[in-house]
C-alpha cells in the first residue's frame, strides 16, 4: 500500500508532509507518495530533521486512490490534512481547498 510520511512542525505544531527533495510541506496534496522502498529511505532522511529540531512525531500512514485522487485511508489523517470537521473555518481547510 502506498504511504505518506508526516510529522508536526516543532515550533508551530502544524501538520507537515514529507515531499522528498522539497523537504517538509504543509499541503497533503504536495506530499510525496512512497512505495515500500521509498518509505524506508524517507524515514531515515526524516530522522535528520527530527534531530535538527524541525519536526516531531514522524510516522508513515497509508493512502489510496479514490476517484483519481490520493486520499488517506484513515479518517484521522483526513482530519489532520484539513482541520476540524466541526470548524471548517479553522485549519488548513480554511486556507485553501484541500481534501
Amino acid at each position, binding site marked *: 500500500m502506498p504511504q505518506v510520511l508526516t510529522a508536526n512542525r*516543532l515550533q*508551530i505544531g502544524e*501538520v507537515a508532509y514529507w515531499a522528498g527533495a522539497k523537504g517538509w510541506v504543509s499541503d497533503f496534496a504536495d506530499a510525496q507518495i512512497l512505495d515500500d522502498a521509498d518509505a524506508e529511505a524517507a524515514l531515515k532522511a526524516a530522522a535528520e530533521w527530527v534531530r535538527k529540531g524541525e519536526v*516531531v512525531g514522524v510516522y508513515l500512514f497509508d493512502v489510496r486512490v479514490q476517484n483519481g485522487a490520493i486520499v488517506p485511508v484513515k*479518517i484521522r489523517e483526513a*482530519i489532520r490534512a484539513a482541520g476540524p470537521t466541526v470548524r471548517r473555518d479553522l485549519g488548513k481547510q480554511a486556507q485553501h481547498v484541500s481534501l
Partner: protein
Amino acid sequence: MYRYDEFDSVLVHERAEQFRGQVARRLSGELTEDEFKPLRLMNGLYLQLHSYMLRIAIPYGTLSSRQLRKLGQIARRYDRGYGHFTTRQNLQLHWSQLPDVPDMLVELAEVEMHCMQTSGNNVRNISADPFAGAAEGEIEDPRILCEILRQWSTLHPEFSFLPRKFKICVIATEEDRAALLIHDIAIKAVKNEAGEIGYRVYVGGGLGRTPYLAQEIGSFVEKRDILGFLEAILRVYNEAGRRDNIHKARVKILVHQIGIDEMRRRVEAEFAEIRKSQILELPAEEMSRIAAYFAGPVFATPPAVSPEFEAAKRENPDFADWVKTNVHPHKVAGYAIATVSLKPIGKTPGDCTSEQMEALADMMDAFGQEEIRVTHEQNLILPHMLVSDLFALWRELVPLDLATANHGLVTDIIACPGLDYCDLANARSIPVAQAIQKRFADLERQHDLGELKIKISGCINACGHHHVGHIGILGVDRKGVENYQILLGGSGAQDASLGEILGPGFDSEGIVDAVENVIGTYTHLRHDGERFLDTYRRVGAPAFKERLYAR
C-alpha cells in the same frame, strides 16, 4: 475567592520563567522530545492533531471577571479566538504555538493563573462543587480544602513523577455536582456526632479502560490530619503503583489489585509515621486564613419574592423556560444560582469565544458577581445572582448565544474534543453531540424527557466521562471506521454508578437513531416522575436491548 500573596505570585512567575528556559533548551536541541514531553506536559502543553493545545488551570473551577477577561484576550491574541471548557473545570486553547507559550504563561501569571500540573503524572487540578458557597446544606466551602491541597500539591518534590495522573475532588453537600467518586482521591466534608467538621476520604476512582468508583479509606479524617493522610496515600501510590504499563498505572488499579483493606492498612501505617513527625499538621490558623478568602459576598436581604422577576416570567415565555432549567435555589432568599449554558444547539459543547468571555466578564462586573464557576459538565455558573437581576442577565445572554435553556436536559451534552482535535482519539465526538442536539432541539420535547445526561467520549480515555452518563457514548475505531458504543445507566451524582454497554455499536449514520430509539424505550416504559436513569434502573438493559436490536 483566593487572592495570591507575593509568595504565590512569585512562584507562578518563576515557574513561567523556568518553562521559558525549558522551551529554549528544546528549541536549541539540548532537550530531546522524549525529555521535553513530560516537562511540557507538567505545564499543560500537549501536541494535538493540528497544533499545540494549552490547558490552563482553573483551580476548583473559579474565575474572577479579571481572569475571565484575560482568558478571552489570550485566546484572541495567541490562539483562534475561543477556548474549550473541560470536564475538569479547566480551559483548553487548541491552536497554541510553542514559542508563544512562555509569554502566555507570563500573561496568565499577571492575573494569578497558571498551567501547572494540568497534565503529566502529578496531582492535577483539584475540582469542587460548582455551587460552592451558594448551595443549601453545605457543611463548609469545599474550595477551602481545595486551595490548601492546591498549594500542597504544587511542585511537590516527591510526587511530581507519579506512575500516572492523579485527580482529586472535594464536595461538602449530600448532593454531588462534581462526579466525586470517579476521582483518584475523593473527599467529602462531613460532621461527626460532636458536630465537628472532618473529611470522609475515598480512593481509587477513575474511568478509562477499567472504570472504578472510589472506595472509602478514611471515614472521618480530622482537618489537622488531612494533608498528612493525603500524603500517605500519594506515597503508597508512588512507591507501589505500576510503572510497567500505562494502562495499569492509576491508583485504582493498585486498590483493585491489593484490595481496599490492604490499601487502608498501608496508608494508615504511613500516616501514623507522618502524624508522629507533625510536619504536615495543618494549623487551624492556616485553615482559617484560607477560609477567610471563601467567606463569600456580603449578602443583602432582598424580599423573598421579586415582583419584576415574576412579571418577566409571565410576560416572556422564553425567559420562563430559561428559569425552569437554568436557575437554581440559593441558600439565601432572594438570590439564585444561574447556569450559563455553553451548549447551544449545533455548536461545540463547552466552547466559548473571546467575545463571549469578555462579555461575561463585563456582566459579572455589572451584576456584582465576583466569581464565575466552570462545571465538569462544561457549563458556567454565576453563583450569587439577585433574583431581581435574572431577567436583565438573561437579556444580555440571549444575543451572545449564552442563554440556551437546556441545563440538565438531553441537549446539555458533555463531549470531549474527540478526533476533530485530539491526538488520542479514535472517533469524532462533537458531530455526534451536535446531531443529537439537532434531533432533540424542540424544547417541549426536551422538557418532556426531563433530566437526561448524555456524555460522549472519542476514545477509551473517557475525557467525556461516558461511563457516568445516563446515556454514555464511546467512539471507537472499528476496522478504520468510526463506531459508537452505547452505555446506559451511569451517574456522576450522589447515586454514582458506571454505565453498562448495551450491545454492538453503531456507525456515524446510525448512532443518532439508536439514541432516539433508546430514549423511545424510556418514554414507552416510564412511570410517573421517573427520569431516564430511574426507568433504566428499574427495568434494566433487556427492554432497551430488545427494542434497539430487534430487526
